[in-house]
């Protein structure tokens, strides 16, 4: 009787331990890839002065190696390390409400600060409140909130801080290119968009993908854009958190199994690509377009039409130089691609690399489309209606930055939720 009880207790504890550890974030691989060391300099006669150490502290919303949003930021940190001698990147990843119970972003930022960070980067929209709270209690510490609008004077969420930078790439262009590639590839005329959560940013990016698709479907494929189906399904966060979000694997499969032969990803991770690859292996003719990270296609090049990606390096490099020079002040920047070469790592904030699965024919047309954009083509021009049919832009009217940034609805012709339903 007694030993039975002990066994009951023990097995219960074991169960509990498993439960608790299951609630913990998945183990990060212990060996982070080392930044490639710069080649050894030839030994100069005079030993150079030791470069001044400068630590960048970065909070990443997902794993640093997510092949998506967070890895793009992480790599940007490594880029600055390479460019400026003495710079060192430290980071905490998986900073989100589910993965690090009991902590807040501002608290984690203080941990970075206590480790000597001179510039704190909050890499996610989700950390907006955390970044603001941190800036309130540490007004002298330079802060960057990527993707936020806190320091945008004309924006609707402006708060005056002394050293609070906002940076964001004009991914609208990247998404338009992605939409174009999808429209020129689809055989069923149905494009699925694997959406993250719903907010201003995701609405305008999804709308951009749709605009690019519509434009290329008509102009380069010679088809009627009214026949193009474009549907977005949101999962509820930037990436899968089991039990809290919809499962992106499931959502991607649903698209692929119901006639949507191209899935564009709007989430931080690569489920769309992975599922398309599996469907392809099972004999389906399908494609996918991942997001955020330049190297994302590598996971399944046979179905990848290319990837629109962020290149945060130059923005962070500038910020580091300003902090070092003592000139860092609050700013808001929304950086477009370098149209002379959108894949220039030193100048372009957003880019697009073509994937192996994009046909030569489609590729040449997408290149023409990119040239059009570079030449000033603007797709946010009226007549355009919101999803519910109410007018967004009158004939010939050009959307302002504010109208695009704070897009309140999806556009007419798109399927899926504009705002969450009750």
């Amino acid at each position, binding site marked *: 009787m*007694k030993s039975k009880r002990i066994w009951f*207790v023990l097995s219960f*504890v074991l169960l*509990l331990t498993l439960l608790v550890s299951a609630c913990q974030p998945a183990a990060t691989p212990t060996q982070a890839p080392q930044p490639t060391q710069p080649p050894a300099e030839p030994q100069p006669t005079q030993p150079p002065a030791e470069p001044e150490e400068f630590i960048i502290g970065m909070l990443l919303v997902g794993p640093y190696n997510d092949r998506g949003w967070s890895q793009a930021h992480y790599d940007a940190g490594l880029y600055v390390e390479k460019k400026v001698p003495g710079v060192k990147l430290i*980071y905490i990843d998986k900073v989100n409400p589910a993965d690090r119970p009991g902590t807040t972003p501002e608290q984690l930022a203080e*941990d970075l600060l206590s480790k000597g960070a001179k510039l704190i980067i909050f890499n996610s929209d989700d950390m907006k409140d955390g970044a603001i709270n941190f800036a309130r209690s540490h007004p002298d510490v330079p802060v960057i909130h990527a993707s936020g609008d806190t320091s945008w004077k004309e924006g609707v969420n402006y708060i005056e801080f002394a050293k609070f930078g906002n940076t964001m790439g004009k991914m609208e262009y990247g998404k338009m290119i992605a939409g174009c590639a999808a429209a020129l590839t689809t055989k069923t005329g149905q494009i699925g968009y694997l959406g993250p*959560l719903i907010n201003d940013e995701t609405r305008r990016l999804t709308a951009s993908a749709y605009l690019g698709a519509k434009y290329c479907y008509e102009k380069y494929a010679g088809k009627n854009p009214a026949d193009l189906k474009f549907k977005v399904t949101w999962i509820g966060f930037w990436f899968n958190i089991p039990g809290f979000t919809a499962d992106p694997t499931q959502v991607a499969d649903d698209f692929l199994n119901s006639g949507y032969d191209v899935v564009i990803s709007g989430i931080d991770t690569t489920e769309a690509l992975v599922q398309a690859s599996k469907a392809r292996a099972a004999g389906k003719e399908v494609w996918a377009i991942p997001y955020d990270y330049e190297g994302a296609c590598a996971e399944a090049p046979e179905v990848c039409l290319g990837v629109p990606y962020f290149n945060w390096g130059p923005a962070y490099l500038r910020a580091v130089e300003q902090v070092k020079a003592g000139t860092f002040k609050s700013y808001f920047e929304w950086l477009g691609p370098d149209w002379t070469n959108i894949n220039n790592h030193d100048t372009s904030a957003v880019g697009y690399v073509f994937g192996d699965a994009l046909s030569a024919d489609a590729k040449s047309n997408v290149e023409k489309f990119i040239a059009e954009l570079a030449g000033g083509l603007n797709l946010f021009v009226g007549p355009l209606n919101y999803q519910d049919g109410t007018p967004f832009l009158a004939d010939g009217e050009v959307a302002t930055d504010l109208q695009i940034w704070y897009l309140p609805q999806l556009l007419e012709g798109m399927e899926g939720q504009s705002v969450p339903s009750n």
Partner: protein
Amino acid sequence: MTTMKTSSRWSGIGFQALAVLLALAFTTIVMLISGADPLQVYQNILTGAVGSPVKIADILVAWTPLLLATAGLLLTFTAGLWNIGIEGQITLGAIFTTWALRVLQPTDLPPALIITIGFIAGALGGMFWAGLVALLKIFGNVNEIFGGLGLNFVATALTIWLIFGPWKRPGVGSMSGTEPFPLELWLPTLQGFRLSPLSLAMGIIAIVIVYILLRGTYFGLRLKAVGRNGRAAFLMGIPTTRYMLMAFLLCGLMAGLAGATQVLAVYHRLIPSISSGYGFLGMMVAMLVNYQALWAAPVALFFAALNIGSIQLPIVLKLDSSLSGVLQGSLVLFVLLMDGVRRRLTRS
């Protein structure tokens, strides 16, 4: 354990010390396997935990809800109940608190009053959810482990639904949480710290009350009788059902307060994992201290320190913070294991 003879008490302490050593050895092996330098790890946890006054205050911030949860669990454990539903009870406390604040925010009531009502609402929310577990057990004959586990899932689902549905931020559909409350509805903290003396005091009062209840009252004695042998207690005229219900409700009350603290003093909004796992952690603390209130406070403090200290691991050593969970879990396992070994040895 007051009846224990001195020699067996010493052997008990010896076994406990052995258990701690084994847990440390086990965690060290885990570190070695993952290629980390254990000394560096322990050193980082230590500096991460007590390296600065802000850190120490952060430990106390984590200690408060953990202490509340542990205090409540000591009551249910004493009554022989496995209140695994405590996570859901914390969550419901947080939901009720958020609800009260949302309703009262537009009114002219002074913030202090709104915050107070928020705490009361949180306590009621926790009691409500614990009461459901109790009713399921008493009238539905559903074991409290299964009832509690089920209600935990329901509580999470409810949180998600509220965040995406009725309580969503305008135009936003994200699981990241509800709109933060304005600054005046934040529980006041010490200047420069995240620590609120008020919630800290609440945690301490809770554990003291539980200590006194279990130590020196008729109620505590009867609760123990119910826990040791419900049938015998019933035959001796103790209304066991009522005592079980009381234990659940009191535990729910404290869990609800823990949830209220999470909303009012830590997150200032409702987030999906608002309980932060303090319920399960509290169970581990309670088991580790063999359900004695006296030791619950320092052990809970130690666990909170491990949680805060381990934040440093990913920064410096690229190790996962959940390593502290390994240490916590193995501590409980080995202490229980050693307890079993001691009993077997002393019996023969």
